């Protein structure tokens, strides 16, 4: 990809904590804003070196457009392709896209009318069994006769593994079968039927999914250096492959010491990708996992609970925090705690979000977060599984690699990681397949932890923003582009040295 021809954007550069540099500001950031960029305000442009081995270091052209005080904010223009590289090369700076605000006017004509409910005329009778013919209850199935307008029906199988759906026609455009755990899902397109028997394939924990294609985790030794990972999610465990060293239930009116999974399994799956050891293998087995439960069972997480989880993770001296959650709107309260974490030498990795190539969600789009998109690889999931419907361009330099169709994308993306058809832990010693930037995020966290375990000098730094800066700089030397383009992959994927 010809990076010099890529689009440029305007960005505001600020020190981490205040609008201007202070006595506490990292000296490198202070020097960068005052000695490197400030003189350039009156000149044309500057070229900055990327972080990396000397032989591969390159120059990032950057135009300084304006400045608020010589030790304060700078408005700069740089290529969107270079943005991720810039972030990793100059950590300790807040990088905020220049925004323009409209008048608070309501455009009534843009309000869409909801489509009328389609009259149902046909029944689709479904039967779900395992490969031996035993019925499977509680499987969520959704069928669409028109996927574009999301016209269809959904439900869960009964104790006999049966479900009857009411549809507008017997021609089905897509059907998705989503088991919660134990089995791979099922996906079929463009067929006519009034009944369908589907046999689900059981998960083989030795299967090489996309995570284990890129990372040979089953062969890796346990990490022995003390690294603590905080997981802000639905809780973690119980599972025989996982050790939870501490945490807090942040949900009001629940037992603060009960930070097990709330039953939904999301946090346990995330934790397995990072640290499972036994039945499946995470990327950083041996690290200390701290679970901060912010999701009540079958309910949404309050931003206050998330702030509480972040505050506790800072107090517990985590090294990395995993946040596989997000929303479209920004939240200053959560931002302030992520900033506090950064100032305490902790990195927050956040999932880009799963809105079918929508903009990067908050908090991933916050300048001090590490934002992770999801990618997949063909032939790392069985045929006719849900994952076959996730394959979508762009493809990487290796054409088997693709960015997941659901993954949010944008200039805030820092990294990409496997997030399609991931085998990991589920509460009560079960295993499940999940897809999402929620899975890509802990893959990046796990690999970051494994790489940082090789950098004891950085881990031993005082807990201040300079520690987080150095962690990012070190990790930046371990990222390789997969050829998707910066909007999709940021700087690329964290990979071990070979």
């Amino acid at each position, binding site marked *: 990809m010809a990076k010099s021809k890529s689009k440029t954007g305007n960005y505001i550069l600020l020190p981490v904590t205040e609008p201007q540099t202070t006595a506490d500001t990292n000296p490198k950031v202070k020097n960068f804003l005052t000695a490197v960029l400030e003189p350039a305000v009156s000149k044309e442009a500057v070229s900055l070196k990327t972080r990396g081995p000397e032989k591969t270091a390159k120059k990032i052209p950057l135009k300084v457009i304006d400045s608020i005080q010589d030790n304060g904010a700078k408005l700069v223009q740089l290529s969107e392709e270079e943005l991720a590289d810039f972030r990793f090369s100059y950590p300790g700076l807040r990088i905020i896209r220049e925004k323009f605000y409209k008048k608070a006017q309501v455009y009534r004509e843009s309000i869409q009318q909801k489509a009328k409910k389609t009259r149902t005329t046909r029944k689709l009778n479904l039967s779900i069994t395992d490969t031996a013919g035993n019925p499977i209850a509680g499987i969520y199935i959704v069928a669409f006769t028109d996927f574009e307008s999301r016209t269809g029906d959904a439900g869960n199988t009964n104790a006999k593994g049966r479900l009857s759906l009411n549809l507008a026609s017997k021609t089905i455009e897509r059907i998705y079968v989503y088991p919660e755990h134990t089995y791979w899902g099922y996906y079929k397109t463009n067929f006519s039927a009034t009944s369908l028997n589907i046999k689900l394939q059981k998960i083989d924990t030795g299967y090489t999914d996309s995570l284990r294609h890129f990372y040979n985790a089953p062969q890796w030794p346990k990490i022995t250096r003390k690294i603590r990972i905080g997981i802000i999610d639905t809780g973690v465990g119980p599972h025989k492959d996982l050790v939870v060293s501490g945490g807090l239930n942040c949900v009001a009116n629940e037992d603060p010491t009960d930070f097990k999974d709330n039953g939904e399994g999301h946090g346990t799956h995330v934790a397995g990708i990072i640290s499972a050891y036994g039945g499946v293998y995470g990327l950083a087995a041996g690290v200390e996992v701290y679970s901060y439960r912010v999701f009540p069972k079958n*309910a*949404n997480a*309050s931003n206050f609970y998330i702030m509480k989880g972040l505050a506790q993770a800072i107090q517990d001296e985590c090294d990395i925090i995993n946040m596989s959650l997000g929303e479209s709107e920004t939240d200053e309260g959560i931002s302030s705690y992520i900033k506090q974490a950064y100032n305490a030498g902790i990195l927050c990795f956040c999932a880009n979000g799963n809105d079918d190539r929508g903009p990067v969600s908050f908090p991933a789009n916050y300048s001090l977060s590490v934002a992770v998109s999801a990618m997949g690889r063909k032939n790392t999931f069985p045929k006719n599984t849900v994952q076959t419907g*996730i394959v979508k361009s762009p493809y990487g330099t290796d054409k088997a690699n693709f960015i997941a169709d659901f993954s949010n994308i944008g200039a805030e993306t820092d990294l990409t990681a496997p997030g399609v058809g991931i085998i990991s832990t589920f509460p009560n010693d079960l295993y499940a397949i*999940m897809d*999402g930037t929620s899975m890509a995020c802990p893959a990046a966290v796990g690999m970051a932890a494994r790489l940082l375990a090789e950098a004891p000098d950085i881990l031993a730094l005082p807990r201040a923003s300079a520690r987080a800066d150095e962690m990012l700089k070190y990790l930046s030397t371990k990222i390789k582009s997969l050829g998707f383009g910066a909007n999709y992959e940021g700087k690329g994927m964290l990979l071990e040295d070979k």
Partner: protein
Amino acid sequence: MANYILQYRGTGIPDPQQVKETLHICGVSIIDGSLLPLTALLDVSDGEVENVRCRFEADWSLTPEKKYKVPDTRKHPEE
């Protein structure tokens, strides 16, 4: 009544006793005070929101509690 988050935006640490007293005067109950004196989850009636904002002034923010869903990639039909 709705849940609001009160958060300190100034420098230094505010006096926790003064924060509690001000909330008491406003007739606001604290749902979760574990992050005090910097942050608190409050139960505030609609009529009291502006009063609380005025009493806490510029160094404080009072914003409605927001909810985050467990992320999901499953497709769903239109309701």
